[in-house]
């Protein structure tokens, strides 16, 4: 098992339009084939921006991107439009938080899945249709044959989410990007979708990058977790390590502020303050102003990412 499926090196993304922001400040990570990585973070951490950059979804005009992204040997940042069209949907695919977003309301889901197939593979109409039916059945949509002819608005939230997964997987991508796919769902449906994703991943062997702010969802689905804050990865490791032995103070604070009834009656542990303004990041470590373990060095110099055993973190004064 040699090279990783995905390799991101020192990715920096800056938005220069109306709302200026340094969204990503040197993000580096790898994903092996068949691995599920969760990008964990809150609003403004850069997790969604990372996904969108992997598919080059940002408008060219007001976005400055530097660094390197290699997926299955291809250099994503230097792809031409034609190459991008081949890449999107085929090599890498994405599912979103709002299932309605992926579908055009005036076409049936059967039509849209078939269209995706015909764009990427050489099939005739009938083959495409039966493949579409197959994938709809695989994502456990009941009465799939009838649902092929349904419009997106005729499906419930959970169904739409499954249909969106079908659309994303029909061309057998090697990498699936999932942007908070279960956040808007009811608990009972959420767990169904999480388990479905886990099954599909094992079956197809694809790699998945899962973005969420819900640690529980991350634990159910992933092998490794990378915690993001203010556009950088602050800690990364296996799920077990992160959850039981966090090294970075932010990770620790995040885990501690999980609401649990065990603390009933006592105030919850909180991380003081609020996330920084991405247009005016402080010098040094972005988390330092809120960190209980901050030292002078933290305010002056940005910590480097180092790897100790199987965990990596960027902190001058990590937890022990």
């Amino acid at each position, binding site marked *: 098992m040699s090279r990783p499926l995905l390799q991101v090196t020192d990715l920096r993304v800056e938005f220069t339009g*109306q709302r200026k922001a340094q969204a990503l400040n040197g993000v580096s990570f790898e994903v092996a084939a068949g691995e599920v990585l969760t990008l964990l973070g809150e609003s403004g951490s850069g997790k969604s921006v990372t996904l969108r950059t992997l598919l080059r979804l940002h408008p060219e005009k007001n976005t400055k991107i530097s660094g390197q992204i290699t997926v299955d040997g291809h250099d994503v940042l230097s792809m031409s439009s034609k190459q991008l069209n081949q890449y999107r949907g085929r090599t890498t695919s994405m599912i979103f938080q709002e299932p309605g977003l992926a579908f055009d309301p005036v076409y049936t889901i059967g039509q849209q899945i078939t269209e995706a197939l015909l764009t990427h593979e050489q099939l005739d109409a009938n083959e495409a249709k039966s493949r579409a039916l197959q994938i709809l059945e695989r994502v456990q949509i009941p009465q799939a044959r009838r649902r092929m002819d349904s419009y997106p608005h005729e499906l419930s939230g959970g169904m739409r989410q499954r249909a969106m997964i079908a659309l994303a997987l029909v061309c057998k991508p090697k990498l699936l990007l999932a942007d908070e796919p279960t956040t808007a769902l009811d608990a009972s449906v959420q767990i169904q979708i999480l388990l479905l994703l886990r099954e599909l991943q094992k079956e197809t062997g694809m790699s998945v990058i899962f973005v969420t702010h819900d640690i529980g969802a991350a634990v159910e689905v992933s092998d490794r977790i990378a915690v993001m804050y203010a556009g950088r990865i602050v800690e990364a490791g296996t799920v077990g390590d992160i959850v039981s032995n966090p090294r970075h103070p932010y990770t620790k604070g995040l885990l501690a502020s999980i609401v649990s009834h065990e603390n009933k009656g006592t105030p919850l542990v*909180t991380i003081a*303050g*609020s996330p920084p*303004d991405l247009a005016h990041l402080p010098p040094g470590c972005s988390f330092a102003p*809120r960190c209980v373990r901050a030292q002078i060095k933290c305010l002056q110099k940005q910590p480097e990412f180092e790897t100790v055993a199987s965990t990596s973190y960027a902190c001058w004064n990590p937890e022990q």
Partner: protein
Amino acid sequence: MMKDNIDHPQPQYQKTKGYWHAVLRQLKNEPLAIISAGILLVLIIAALFAPWLAPADPFKASMLKRLMPIGSPGNLLGTDELGRDMLTRLMYGGRLSLIMGIVPVFSAFCIGTTLGLIAGYLGGRVNMVIMRILDIFYAFPSVLLAVAISGALGPGLSNSLIALTLVFVPQIVRVAESVTTQVRQLDYIEAARMSGSSNLSIIRVHILANVLGPVFVYATGLLSVSMILASGLSFLGLGVKPPEPEWGLMLNTLRSAIYNKPYIAALPGGFIFITSIAFNLLADGIRSAMDIKK
């Protein structure tokens, strides 16, 4: 009590003065809008101060000086078919034309917004009654409607103003009702209802300010339409009567001169054209400025 939220010193928070100030500031980035505003300003000042600025008497005819070309000494823009100075008549004409452009839109704005707020806020039967009645008017093309109402009321300035107002009210009510219906569903209106305040107070404090914006943008777009319709009415003899100077009327009376002195015959039309475009570009600019703010 522990203050557990330490707010970062947010740098550069200009003291926000309010929505309209921000829009004005944003307007600086719209060069076309600024130029248009400038042109309109010149026209309005010329029209307003015509009695003091105009070189001649708009009614003083002279059979000797008929249809003098542009650039004649003493008559900068020439004279019309009755020998009256064009520049003067255009300046005086601007008064009536601008009035016929602005007044109906302003009246329709007031009436239409009120009706739209009522229809949108109360919903149900009231909404249905108001909107369906207006639909009848809305079904006619503006020109036809304006001519029909004007014809029924008779010629004259005030009748034309009424006719034009009636043409625009349904359109503005549509926009106002639509925005009101959207705003009404938002949570802050529910919160306002939970305050126990009367419906009128809620409309006044919470809904009005949010509806005025979009309606204002739509109304400014109507200014040019109103001017052109008004000129059309005068051209057809339904608006102002001669010898009153008014651009549309001047187009009519100068028709006969179109073969020998086409430039002079075209002058009133040119002014209508420029004013309409200026209104439109200004409206576009304001719309852009308001969009970006959002």
